[in-house]
């Protein structure tokens, strides 16, 4: 797993997750997110290159969203990969995250 960070001037921080967002990388992802969350800025997480998502990944995204919202920052998920959509679908999480999802044709 790899998380790239891109700062847009005036815009949100965009994190791009690459590879497996699973229990094996959960501690690393938690570390990255903790640092980013501490900056108290809006966040956008690009999920287009997530190859696998498990419960720990889902949980991490949920917790991060809660944390961001508690401080009044925006937290959005964009460009869900098929693996992410599959899980979101199974757990019926669409309304929970409330992000628009582009379903591939």
């Amino acid at each position: 797993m790899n998380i790239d960070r891109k700062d847009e001037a005036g815009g949100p921080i965009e994190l791009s997750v690459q590879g497996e967002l699973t229990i094996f990388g959960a501690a690393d992802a938690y570390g990255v997110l903790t640092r980013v969350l501490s900056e108290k800025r809006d966040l956008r997480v690009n999920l287009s290159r997530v190859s696998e998502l498990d419960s720990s990944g889902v949980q991490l995204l949920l917790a991060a969203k809660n944390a961001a919202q508690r401080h009044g920052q925006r937290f959005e998920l964009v460009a869900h990969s098929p693996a992410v959509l599959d899980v979101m679908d199974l757990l019926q999480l669409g309304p929970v995250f409330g992000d628009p999802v582009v379903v591939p044709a």
Partner: protein
Amino acid sequence: MNLEPALQAFFAEADELLTRMEEALLGLESVPDDRELIDEIFRAAHTIKGTAGVFGFDDVVHFTHEVESLLDRVRDGQIAVSAAVIGPLLRSKDHIGALVRAVAEKSELSGQDRAEGDELTGVLLGLLGKAPAARGDSLVAQAPGVPAEPVSDAGDDDCAGSGNWHLSLRFGVDVMRGGMDPLSFLRYLGTIGEIVHLHTVADALPPWLELDPEACYLGFEIDFLSDASKADIEGVFEFVRDDCVLHIIPPYAKVSAYLDVIRALPEDDLMIGELLVLSGALTRAELERGLAQQKGGSDSEAPAGPTAPLGEILVEAGAVNAGVVDAALVKQKQVKDNKAQEARSLRIDADKLDQLIELVGELVIASAGVQNISQTLANIQLSEASEVLLRLVDDVRDQALSLRMVQIGATFQRFQRVVRDVSRELGKDIELVISGAETELDKTVVERIGDPLMHLVRNAMDHGIEQTEVRVANGKPARARLMLGAQHEAGSIVITVADDGGGLNRDKILRKAIERGLVSEDAQLTEREIDRLIFAPGFSTADQISNLSGRGVGMDVVRRDIEALRGTVEIDTQPGRGTSLSIRLPLTLAIIDGFLIGVGTATFVLPVGVIVECVELAGEERSAARARGYLDMRGEVLPLLWLREAFDMQGESPTRRENVVVVQFGQSRVGIVVDQLMGEHQTVIRPLGKLFSALRGVSGSTILGTGEIALILDVAGLLQIAGRNELVSHPATRARGVEADERSASLNVQ
């Protein structure tokens, strides 16, 4: 997530479970109403189904489900145990094995296996009293667990209106750390029914900074439409049973059942209530009425405290019978037992073990080097230290090798089934007697001895044991005995396959051998030589080729397999009384205690286990032995083999004296003539390359402490060369003998 290790564990476990299932089924044949055996078979099938489900191996799940259904009926006493049930169950067990193998090898099921599966499914459904399903139908949908009857009285206010199951699931914090992903259970759940509505409960998530990213905080409220029984639904979560709170509310349950669950859950009552309304399990009116009732109503009706212990499954009224509860208890106990056992033993990747053994091998070589130097330096302190080191290395070596040792019993047990099936096929009554099942030997050897043993066992049953009428006519018990035994014997293990059949028919063997041109017509053969003819390539005595053996590709392959393991096979047969085949195998393939001998400047290693004694060959005796080719050993004739000539080595033999190493292998004893004896040596066996595979008389190589290479002599091979070429008979014929044999070792070591 990388599932590979978990998958491997599943395949290994399925293998063990299927073996146990087979043993239990065979046991059931003699004791048809043994409860424990029936339970054991059921548990095996159930566990395989459950695990296969978690991994999403639908084929395995579907088929095993039918088997399990049948077993369930048997367990309830609805179907009696009989050959009509055991037969299909044994075949089913084989088919499950085939399905699991197909998954493991990531291959498609062969057409034959597929047909077998379809046929078996039909048989199983027939036994269950159901019409065989059309192909492609979800077999799971036909599960025997009939959901609770809808309560017809529409006026009953207490009855909630939904035909869905409701599952309330809270995973324990350690579930993910334990290697399980809650998602996989939900996916599996989706295979036995339809998830109508699912709400992910994340209320237990702590604030960000208190979050443990590897802990699990998730719960799920699920509405589930399925014909599966409650036990089936519970079964989905079997592997997290101890680590989750699961409440299952059957379809058309009373409102109070929902309320009980609502109260038992850690979340706010109203929130869960809302959830249930949201998911359509309850109507708002039902909820409000229910909550009000509970509040104002009698306390005696209130369920036990809200803190349900982990793993507790609330048994809701209606959909559950006592049998399910029993099964659940048994399962829980079994899980605990398994855990206790896991604590005592550890599953290790065989590769890791091989690496360890290899390292120990290097250590042995290195320590031999140290010993060598310490001897040269003759420093007392250094020698003492190196002695201690050597002893420790010895112990390490023994311990490391013992890690690879497994009991042969499991291999023997497999033959129970073979003997049962084959004896039926042949119409013979054969009993398998196993002894020495606890004898240990190297895992590699155990793995590779299976095929040759199978061949010998089949041969014994097909050719060795007579038809029942013949036995009775000869005054023998109608029930024949086939004995499989193992025992340790001086650094090797001896495995015996013996029968009490008619023994080898030497006349017939000789006739057939002459027919096939294996021996000349006027050959004078001893009885032992005739017996050994059955190991000749292309030999078969069968007048008719049966299904089992007799195609003439058998015994020579067996012999070669065994020789590849550095083993030998001996026959002992008594006409009318039976035949016994003894396979002698080395205990391990990796390291042996060797004895160094020298010829010219080359060094060879003989396994210490085969050496009887060493004698000096000098003076008159030497020239006499040279002329005769044998030695008078305290009145007995000891044939001699000159190693220098056997290997066609250059250089002159020493002028003063030579040495004879007397080796014993099986029943033959031979003296090997060498230049010098150099003492014992820990020998790490390194295989020879493919290039040398045709080389006879040498089984491997090793590296000495000095860094030189020494060849390890293969005594059985040497004896063969000696016997075939009559190397030992007369010096004059020796050289010719070597040349004459195309396969003999012609090796220029210098």
